[in-house]
């Protein structure tokens, strides 16, 4: 039965089995190729998207659990101010190596800063520990999160 989901602010109709994971609905049915398949089991974070602002592993989120929630993917995340800051910090610091994990990393980082605008180093490590980077870009991930956070806190408001 066709259902409606909201992706990056747009309503989209899909007609897929209830248990099809959000990751594959996004990638195959809706053409959002940013979220990546890494493990299919919630272990690597490559597929991370936001559901109502929370970071979720889309590979283990069946489409029928999405309901009327707002889905945000890497393609849409820089439409919000925190997402934009994080993406810019990511580019300036040149975080990626192979780049495969990076969409998931950015989505986890944005979710962290949305709920905790000035994270400590421990906060960063614990929020990001679900996202594997096989290439080992972890130092720059930390740097980019700190940079995006400092831009938020510098003037107390949303400065860039």
């Amino acid at each position, binding site marked *: 039965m066709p259902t409606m989901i909201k992706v990056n602010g747009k309503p989209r109709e899909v007609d897929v089995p209830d248990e099809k994971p959000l990751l594959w609905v996004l990638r195959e049915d809706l053409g959002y190729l940013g*979220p990546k398949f890494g493990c299919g089991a919630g272990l690597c974070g490559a597929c991370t998207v936001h559901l109502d602002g929370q970071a979720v592993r889309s590979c283990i989120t069946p489409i029928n659990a999405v309901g009327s929630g707002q889905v945000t993917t890497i393609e849409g995340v820089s439409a919000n101010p925190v997402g934009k800051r994080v993406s810019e910090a990511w580019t300036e610091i040149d975080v990626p*190596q192979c780049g*495969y994990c*990076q969409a998931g990393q950015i989505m986890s980082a944005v979710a962290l800063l949305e709920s905790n605008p000035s994270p400590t180093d421990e906060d960063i490590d614990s929020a990001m520990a679900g996202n594997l980077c*096989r290439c080992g*870009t972890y130092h720059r991930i930390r740097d980019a999160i700190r940079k995006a956070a400092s831009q938020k806190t510098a003037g107390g408001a949303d400065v860039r």
Partner: protein
Amino acid sequence: MSVDTRALAADRRLVIKAMLATGGALAFDIEIAMAQASQPAAARSAGIAASRISAYVAIAADNTVTITAKNPEIGQGVKAMLPMLIAEELDVAWDAVKVEQAVADQSRFGEQFAGGSMSTPMNWMPMRQAGATARAMIVAAAARQWSVPATEITTAKGEIFHARTNRRAPYASLAATAAKEAVPAEASLKLKDPATFSIIGRPVPGPDTPAIVAGKPLFGVDTVLPGLVHAALLTAPVRGATLKSHDPKQALAMAGVRKVVVLRQLGHDDAPVDALAVVADSWWTASEARKALVAEWDNAGRDKHSDATFAAAASAAFAAKPATSVRKEGDVDAALAKAAKTVSAQYSYPFLSHATLEPQNCTAQFKDGKIELWAPSQMPNEGKELVAKAMGLPVGAVTVNLTRIGGGFGRRLQSDFMILAAAIAREVPGLPVKLILEREEDFKLDFFRPAGFQKLEAGLDAQGRLTAFRTHLVGFGAKGEPGRGSELPNDLVPANLVPDAELGLTLLESNIPLGWLRAPGSNALAFATQGFLDEVAAAAGKPLPEFMLETLGESRLVQPPKLPGVPDIWQPPAFHTGRAAGVIREVMARSGWRGAAPKGRGFGFYFSHLGYFAVVADCVKSGDTVKVAKMWVAADIGSTVINPMNAEQQIRGSMIEGIGQVISGLKVPIAAGQVQVANFDAYTLPRIDVVPPIEITMVRTDFPPTGLGEPALPPAVAAVANAISSLTGRRVRSLPYEA
């Protein structure tokens, strides 16, 4: 229109064609043919065959410069590095340079590979010469047009200047005449003084970074084509087992499933597999249907292999002489007999997986007797040939498109996934089919870093100096030939530094296929030899870095024994003791290492892929396990670090991989012929919370620059293991460390 072609060097032939392209652009076609015999030994050890390097540079009417980068990008930074070399000598502003990934044009680009940390040593001079040649032609055109001597002309940021007459012009304005200039001879080229470099040595971000951050489709798994269908693969639990019988009924009954394809004996010659592939309208459907497949496999004795049988075979081998001698000098038995002290120990390490985050995948389309592939391959050309062979097609009927690659580490030097995808595509003619391996299959179908066992012995004289060294490596291979990464080099440090030395090798057979993993061979040999030397140094009452300096002796080139029947150019490189000592001293100074090290501090040195690296690691207790608190790296990769922004990433990545191999518990256990890891819960790659601050120092020496993707890893493994030994007081002789 091609106006001139000229070879610039004999065995590394640089051919440049200049032409006026559409829209008035000045275009240079650059090709460097590497004669088979002139390839560096490290290329051979990474399994790289003949090579042709090419690039394409176009200066458009608006003076922007497009440089086509042709090698696969696996996160090693080659997509920025090669164009930087050209742009520097062409003397254009980096901001005006656009880097494009090469299109799949094999007739133009020839071999396209990523491996062996070879891009830098192979391209350093030729790519600079190419840029300088193009610049010289533009200068000659300006001299002609302005009727001034070429020697009075200067260039900067894509512009020509003549100071005396106060004239300037953008390169692009000279396109029509520059294309007609003769290509200058190599001898007449003047390369820049490195002191004046404005691009080389500056931090340059990855050209794809903005696209990656925006989530743009770049990778193999992102390939989308009209009419695309999807495939999931089921292989035997026991690697190499053949398909006895199967029942696809349940899978075929599922909505969206199109076909179940039986694949027999496909993949690499040394590790063919039988498999079932489900083809469906969606990959998720294919993956669900895969679970419904019923299959029976014939193990044919392959299930007799396990970690326990390997360990028992190694013990038996240690009781006898090695099957082959790799090096034998002097008389080790006599030297040990008269030594003031002797030390002996056994070391072992497990099979490892590459575990690239992007699983192996490939898209293939079979149409009108031709196959086209979209492949994240480190060796697309070899893959093309293997596909042609497996399909019984001429090589010309196979086209390979390159995609960005979500991690290589050597896994994608094997092109088995291309063959599997092609074979599936043949069963659905006309339709493009995208094969993505489940994570479990990706582990099962890896080509593993070989496990190994070593028995090491050393002798010390009364002053605590190393006099004799022997190791017996029990590795893996077949028919007397070591498998990939299971070789024992004849110039292993410290066997090349003492008069009495023996290196011996015994090979075990198994059903587990082997592959090159980042710094193949070296990543394990460094652990065993530097770990053992840490013990020997302790017996001598010296810290390892000081013991190493003493063992290295005076600064000199140590030539490895010649490999019989191998051309000179393919012989292993000489080892420079002075460069080794240089990085050891540097890392000692940086880490403040004086005298006996504090508890928890470890050291490792290694030379591989032409790079000299020394690492110090500090470990601390963390709950009931241990943690690396800090690392220092000193590296000598020659005169120049081409892109420091990327160099830092490569070195940090290696340090983190080293931590992973020692502390994070990385291992691929084998039981009854089966790989015992299926996903990242069992294969525990290092995560952000284990990553320490890492201080890197580049030691500059007057040697041509070499690569960075691999040589930092081996000493990292050793340093972390030695740090834990120091911290716990219990010698880490087996990886991974278990508390």
